[in-house]
């Protein structure tokens, strides 16, 4: 099944309305809503709930004081810092409810619980909060200026400062025949899944156990976080990610304030409580990404080969840093892409601002890094009047140089070593696909018609499948059905299908007989989560390793039953058979379902299979029924934990047309060459690329999170945050190169984020080519382009 583009097994449920997303659960649960701060930086001086008290349907109103009064739990403490880092010298995380000073518009101040969401919002409207205004810090420039502080005790608003250097970059640049300096900017965007966050909590007082459903990318970690926060034994907490309506990064953060508060309220009230985030809330209280200012100095020779690269950038991390500095670390390392930078120096500062916090959004710092590097490549080509593809090719790491050690430390704290990839071959494929060499003629033809067109390209390398581990449990039931469970969650990536494909191959059973469960801590306790293009690599390999264990056990038991050598056995279509034995013929074969029964010495005849099993004699009388280092049941658990990330790569090209009069920007062609190694299910990989590309286009031409200087989010709706419709996304042409990685059993690399990564770099390159105007700031709207043409600076 591996490599088969089979249809997804989750689809019949989802297309017919039988999916179960967070808000589809608990129809009779109480509803939570929040009073959120309308100011970017303000001290809460008073909360007046008088008018709210007489509303029918009011169940409870909570403020920070109520959290503080609850000394039995740790809900009053700041939310956890998930990923500390030595360079993150000033980490700050939020309180579940504003304790004293709100640091951004949308921070929750009061939690209301009522009979339904309508009433809960009525109550919120009647709660009056008084504020003392504090000066807000908005945008990278203001944060750098540091005339005001986001956190009074954080000097210069600097959360983290990190410098990495390989060789003496500045000396190399000084010695280079040519140098360039670029000042670049890239604005904020956001994951913006179609389903917002949500939490539904059920407390069983009699059993003293908590069950929480959360629209999360990591149910296992939410479980541990809740046990700690609510001071409940871990074994009394289960967390389930139901069908999740998209994540793209924002749902990997945990625990969100609501993830703590909703279960906390459910326990206090001994009632089911549900919170379903609405779109407005998502805009002002979920996380954003992307915003950076970058300064690049590069030295290169007459052929455009880079000899030294010196990058300094400033990263807007918003008001809090619960997810550490993963994003700027990724920017600073993945910036290098497929190139050899010569000597390299990179330094960044991660800065606090009075805006929604910044945590990974699909691509997670890579789009910014690729933007910086690819803008530089185009600048070098322009300076030397060389072909842009040629300049890139000259700087490529060559296949024979793999594994290639950049001598830098990657996001996982391990060395940045590329394991695989054939960049020249990828570029060749891309140039063919887009007809790079034929474009000049196309441009001339277009010019003759008064049309303005341009072509661009952008390359990236993406570290995928970061550790530390994922695991799986596989059990063959006496029905012959195979149940695969893994702890990581699913937000549409088709895990129910691809993990079944892997298990089917490894176990020799039909894919139809395999069911897959993800993100349910009742089924699997230890997992990391779905992010960083890691699901297929991590859980895929974990499923394969686990299936191999189960297979080995099946063969051992079957060998005993068939009195054969395990080495002579094979499993096909769910039947263990002596190699060469004619299927169906008596003796010499045994169904896996029977092996499953035999694996359990306790053999009450629940079913026909058990009766049939009695014909086989297994286990000699000189051993206990369950031998030491053996276990009952045809099942196994195993984990995959890699030494390092595996690096996928890709290259995109686009042809754009810009209207000479209206400055409208139209993408005529969008071509992708992508290498994530062997594909488990090409159709699903293709879908991942398509979706990523659409988000890349959105981020380059349409989407933009706009704050004014007072920290008010000016476009907190789908009317003004412009997610592309079908009318804005062109036909996407794709081709694949499959260089396997030596790092894991399946040889696979991640694909989840790939499509989005080069979007801004690529379209900047293409528009610049069409317009002949240097582009240093993205995204680009027609109005922006008009003013660029005017030579006006915004």
């Amino acid at each position, binding site marked *: 099944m591996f490599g088969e583009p089979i*249809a*997804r097994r*989750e*689809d*019949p449920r*989802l*297309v*017919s*309305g*039988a*999916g*179960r*997303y967070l*808000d*589809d659960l608990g*129809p009779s649960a109480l509803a939570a809503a929040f009073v959120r701060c309308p100011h970017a930086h303000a001290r809460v001086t008073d909360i007046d709930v008088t008018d709210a008290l*007489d*509303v*029918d349907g009011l169940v409870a109103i909570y403020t920070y004081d109520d959290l503080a009064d609850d000394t039995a739990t740790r809900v009053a403490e700041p939310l956890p810092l998930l990923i500390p880092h030595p360079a993150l010298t000033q980490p700050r995380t939020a309180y579940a409810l504003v304790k004293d000073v709100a640091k951004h518009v949308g921070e929750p101040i009061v939690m209301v619980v009522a009979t339904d969401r*309508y009433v809960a919002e*009525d109550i919120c409207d009647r709660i009056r909060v008084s504020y003392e205004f504090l000066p807000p810090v908005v945008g990278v420039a203001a944060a750098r200026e540091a005339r005001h502080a986001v956190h009074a005790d954080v000097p210069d608003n600097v959360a983290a400062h990190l410098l990495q250097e390989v060789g003496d970059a500045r000396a190399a640049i000084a010695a280079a025949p040519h140098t360039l300096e670029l000042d670049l900017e890239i604005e904020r965007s956001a994951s*913006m*899944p*179609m*389903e917002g966050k949500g939490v539904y909590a059920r407390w069983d007082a009699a059993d003293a156990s908590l069950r929480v459903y959360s629209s999360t990318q990591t149910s296992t970690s939410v479980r541990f976080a809740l046990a700690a926060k609510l001071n409940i034994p871990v074994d009394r907490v289960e967390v389930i990610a139901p*069908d*999740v*309506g*998209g994540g*793209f990064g924002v749902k990997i953060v945990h625990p969100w304030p609501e993830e703590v508060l909703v279960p906390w309220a459910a326990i206090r009230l001994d009632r089911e409580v549900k919170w379903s985030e*609405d*779109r407005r809330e998502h805009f002002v209280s979920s996380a954003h990404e992307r915003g950076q200012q970058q300064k690049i100095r590069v030295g290169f020779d007459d052929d455009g080969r880079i000899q030294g690269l010196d990058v300094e950038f400033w990263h807007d991390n918003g008001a809090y840093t619960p997810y550490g500095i993963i994003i700027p670390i990724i920017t600073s390392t993945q910036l290098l892409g497929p190139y050899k930078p010569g000597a390299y120096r990179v330094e960044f500062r991660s800065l606090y601002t009075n805006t929604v916090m910044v945590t990974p959004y699909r691509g997670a710092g890579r789009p910014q890094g690729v933007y910086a590097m690819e803008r530089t490549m185009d600048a070098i080509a322009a300076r030397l009047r060389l072909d842009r593809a040629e300049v890139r090719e000259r700087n490529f790491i060559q296949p024979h140089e793999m594994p290639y050690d950049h001598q830098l430390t990657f996001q996982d704290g391990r060395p940045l070593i590329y394991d695989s990839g054939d960049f020249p071959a990828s570029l060749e494929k891309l140039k063919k696909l887009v007809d790079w060499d034929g474009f000049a003629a196309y441009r001339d033809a277009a010019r003759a018609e008064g049309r303005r067109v341009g072509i661009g390209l952008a390359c990236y390398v993406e570290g995928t499948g970061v550790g530390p581990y994922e695991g799986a449990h596989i059990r063959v039931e006496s029905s012959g059905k195979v149940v695969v469970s893994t702890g990581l969650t699913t*937000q*549409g*990536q*088709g895990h129910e299908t691809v993990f079944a494909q892997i298990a089917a191959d490894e176990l020799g059973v039909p894919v139809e007989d395999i069911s897959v469960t993800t993100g349910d801590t009742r089924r699997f306790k230890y997992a990391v989560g779905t992010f960083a293009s890691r699901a297929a690599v991590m859980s895929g390999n974990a499923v394969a390793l686990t299936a191999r264990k189960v297979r080995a056990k099946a063969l051992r038991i079957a060998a005993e039953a068939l009195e054969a050598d395990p080495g002579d056995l094979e499993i096909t279509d769910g039947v263990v058979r002596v190699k060469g034995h004619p299927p169906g013929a008596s003796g010499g074969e045994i169904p896996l379902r029977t092996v499953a029964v035999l694996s359990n010495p306790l053999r009450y005849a629940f079913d026909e299979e058990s009766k049939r099993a009695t014909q086989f004699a297994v286990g000699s009388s000189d051993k206990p029924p369950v031998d030491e280092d053996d276990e009952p049941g045809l099942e196994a658990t195993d984990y995959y934990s890699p030494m390092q990330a595996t690096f996928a790569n890709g290259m995109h090209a686009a042809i754009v047309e810009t209207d000479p009069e209206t400055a409208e920007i139209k993408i005529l062609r969008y071509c992708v060459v992508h290498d994530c190694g062997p594909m488990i299910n090409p*159709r*699903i990989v*293709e*879908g*991942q690329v*398509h*979706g*990523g*590309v*659409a*988000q890349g286009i959105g981020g380059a031409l349409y989407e933009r999170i706009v704050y004014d200087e007072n920290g008010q989010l000016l476009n907190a*709706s*789908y*009317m003004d945050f412009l*997610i592309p*419709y*079908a*009318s804005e*996304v062109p*036909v*996407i042409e794709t081709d694949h190169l499959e260089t396997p990685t030596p790092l894991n059993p399946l040889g696979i690399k991640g694909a989840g984020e790939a*499509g989005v990564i080069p979007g801004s770099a690529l379209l900047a390159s293409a528009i610049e080519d069409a317009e002949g105007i240097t582009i240093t700031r993205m995204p680009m709207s027609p109005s922006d382009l008009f003013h660029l043409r005017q030579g006006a600076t915004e």
Partner: protein
Amino acid sequence: MTETLHETRLVVNGVPRTVRVPARRLLADCLRVDLGLTGTHLGCEHGVCGACTVLVDGQPMRSCLMFAVSADGAEITTTEGCRAPDGGLGPVQQAFQECHGLQCGFCTPGFITTITAYLRDNPAPSEAEAREAIGGNLCRCTGYQNIVKSVLRAAEIQGEVVP
């Protein structure tokens, strides 16, 4: 502040239903909560995303921009009602699975209803028409490529079943 309940009659997916709802109950919430048809999803509640699109007397409309009381007497079709008569997948639903027209599936019900109505009036759309037909629905996962394919495939399937 107890709200008046209004008796409201709807024919939902062919089944007559009567609910008593407050005037402000959105049609989407009525379908999801009062009638338990959770296939209709709310993605923005201001009419932009289209996830909540249902057919009202055959026409696609945003169920987040309608009050249930206002739909009194109307025939409503949700994605649950776009199944085949035998309860299996309907043509559009089948096409979405065949073409990988969905990923997370949250926006999908709005596409299914919209496309079902569109193909009823335009049984054989071109690629460009298919793209235009889905132009009012947002999807964050698929980049629309396979949704366009699904529209065309659904037209084929219908052509086969409907002679």
